[in-house]
């Protein structure tokens, strides 16, 4: 085992632990090879930063507490251009502040990971309560046309595993990746099994080989340009302005803007197979299905079993990757069932792309819950029963 792997194993400690979702995100980052974290304290995400502050010096990485979330996002982009794998974490108000620099990361094709432990908004809202109110902000929060990748784990174990996936996707596609949990999952303690460091699949961004003739934003066959870190003699100019493949500003060219922004979008959508993740329960044997994500999906798992015991042929589609939206998967389900129930811890956000994907094939019913409490199994069960009765 390499000394780096040994250090990581030693830093993380026991292979089985009882930890919070926030801790699991930090562990996942370290396992993925993250060596740089910049952040700012905010409930309920602070523990991610606390763990990183504790772990990074142990493995020779760097933790820096910035003056705000704007600076945190800026710092991880800057650090990523030295070749480091970088991350920040925040909650709603901080995520709002990060939007402009998030767009810069998209435009400059900078790999980095942003963890958002969501709480109720708008504004200061309910700092200690869980919510999923930033799902659409994640998609459209930064200005301009763009695509984004977002993963939504449902357990502490999955929070760790998907943080590793988030780093891998960021590296493979040279783009920021969002890992979204909520205050409930972030502060919930569960058994976490830390895998053997050596068995973890880790991807590194493709490096440019020689400065001769290097065009920093000329895409490879997979639409991703090879990367040259600052200080390696490639003399790259990075700008948030519309730029040509050389990286030089061409802000008045309609053709270059069109080509660049469409490539940046296609770079994500063309790799939907690489990104899309979901879990299906009774996909071929259900009349009514729940489509859920995040912590809500855990409740739904039990609800579906109980409903089936009561004679309702219920199924569950648990979305793990939210953006780019797995439209084809949802469309397939819509073609098979009589109705879809969408429980969300917001006033209805992911129900919209679901309706777009369903395109009228079946009714889509939103079951909203806000205020920081989770959906109870009983309320979802009666929602399913009502839907069954309506569709009968």
């Amino acid at each position, binding site marked *: 085992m390499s000394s780096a792997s040994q250090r990581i194993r030693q830093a993380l400690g026991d292979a089985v632990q009882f930890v919070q979702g926030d801790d699991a995100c930090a562990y996942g980052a370290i396992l993925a090879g993250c060596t740089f974290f910049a952040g700012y304290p905010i409930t309920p995400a602070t523990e991610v930063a606390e763990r990183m502050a504790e772990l990074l010096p142990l493995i020779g990485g760097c933790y820096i507490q910035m003056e705000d979330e704007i600076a945190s996002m800026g710092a991880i982009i800057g650090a990523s*251009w030295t070749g480091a794998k970088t991350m920040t974490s925040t909650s709603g108000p901080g995520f709002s502040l990060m939007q402009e620099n998030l767009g810069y990361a998209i435009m400059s094709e900078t790999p980095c990971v942003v963890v958002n432990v969501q709480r109720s908004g708008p504004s200061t809202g309910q700092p200690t309560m869980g919510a999923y109110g930033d799902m659409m902000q994640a998609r459209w929060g930064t200005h301009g046309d763009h695509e984004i990748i977002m993963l939504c784990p449902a357990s502490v174990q999955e929070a760790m595993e998907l943080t590793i996936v988030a780093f891998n996707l960021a590296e493979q596609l040279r783009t920021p990746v969002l890992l979204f949990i909520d205050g409930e999952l972030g502060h919930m303690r569960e058994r976490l099994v830390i895998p053997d460091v050596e068995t973890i699949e880790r991807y590194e961004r493709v490096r440019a080989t020689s400065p001769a003739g290097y065009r920093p934003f000329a895409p490879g066959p997979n639409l991703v340009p090879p990367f040259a870190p600052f200080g390696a003699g490639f003399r790259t100019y990075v700008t948030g302005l519309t730029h040509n493949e050389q990286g030089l500003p061409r802000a008045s060219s309609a053709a270059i803007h069109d080509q660049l922004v469409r490539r940046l979008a296609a770079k994500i959508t063309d790799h939907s197979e690489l990104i899309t993740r979901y879990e299906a329960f009774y996909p071929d044997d259900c009349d009514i299905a729940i489509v859920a994500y995040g912590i809500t999906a855990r409740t739904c798992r039990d609800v579906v079993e109980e409903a089936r015991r009561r004679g309702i042929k219920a199924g569950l589609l648990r979305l793990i990757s939210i953006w780019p939206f797995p439209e084809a998967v949802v469309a397939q389900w819509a073609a098979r069932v009589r109705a879809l129930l969408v429980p969300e811890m917001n006033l209805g956000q992911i129900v919209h792309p679901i309706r777009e994907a369903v395109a009228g094939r079946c009714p889509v019913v939103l079951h909203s819950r806000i205020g920081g409490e989770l959906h109870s199994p009983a309320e979802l069960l009666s929602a399913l029963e009502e839907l069954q009765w309506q569709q009968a």
Partner: protein
Amino acid sequence: MATGLKPRTAAELRTSYLRQEMFPTIFCDGCGIGNVLNYTLWALDSLGLDLDRTVFVSGIGCSSRLSGYINADGMHTTHGRALAFASGIKAANPELTVIIFTGDGDGAGIGGNHLLHAIRRNMDLTVILVNNFTYGMTGGQAAPTTPDGSFSTTTPYGNIEHPLDICELARALGAPYVARWPVNVPAQPISSIAQGISKRGFALIEMLVPCPTAYGRRNGLKELERSWQWYREQTVLVDEWEWIEQFGSPEERAALGGKLKIGVFQDLERETFEDRWARLVARVRL
């Protein structure tokens, strides 16, 4: 510190240091930002800095375009945030020389909080802050540095806000190197930029430059000769300033009102963030 200026022609400097494809520049006739670029190149040359290991970071605005003109790694970031990006670069790879170009609006207005904390953190960064008293790129709006009573598109009846003294702020925060020079004196800024880059720690060099298009024409400083004259008349060396304050006649003291203090305001040693972090890691690393 003496700077080892070599007898170079401007053409030689251009070929050695500039990204030819970026020219012509965006700067208007009479703009002083080009002078700052020129002084910076002389300073880089005097130090023999390895451009392969130097990163130029900037925010948004006219002076923030400078990062693109130098043929090195460069990062033209978001408005006001150059220091945040630069801090990430420096913290992640302390071996790189990181130089920041920013303006008064970019660096001290929207980016004021980052300036404050970057100085407090004391990374080895060199900030060349170009102060033209206005938001030039957007057409001449009032900035945090716009002089009292000056006219701009957003102060059409005269500015009523008190201008910010950026160097005084940096000095108070303990920045290891702080200097301010007007555009009309080349040798001092070249020397100060070189000293700032050589200084282990945060260095701020504020450059006072004319913006004839957006600021000058609304304040009787449109003509180049007149505006350079203004910088000669309105700036007072720090030593002279302090002498007048202490020993000057009431008339001499009154004459300082509205003028700008120039010179090297601070030059001291202070341990950097990177050095402290390295010591911390050496202490706890597994």
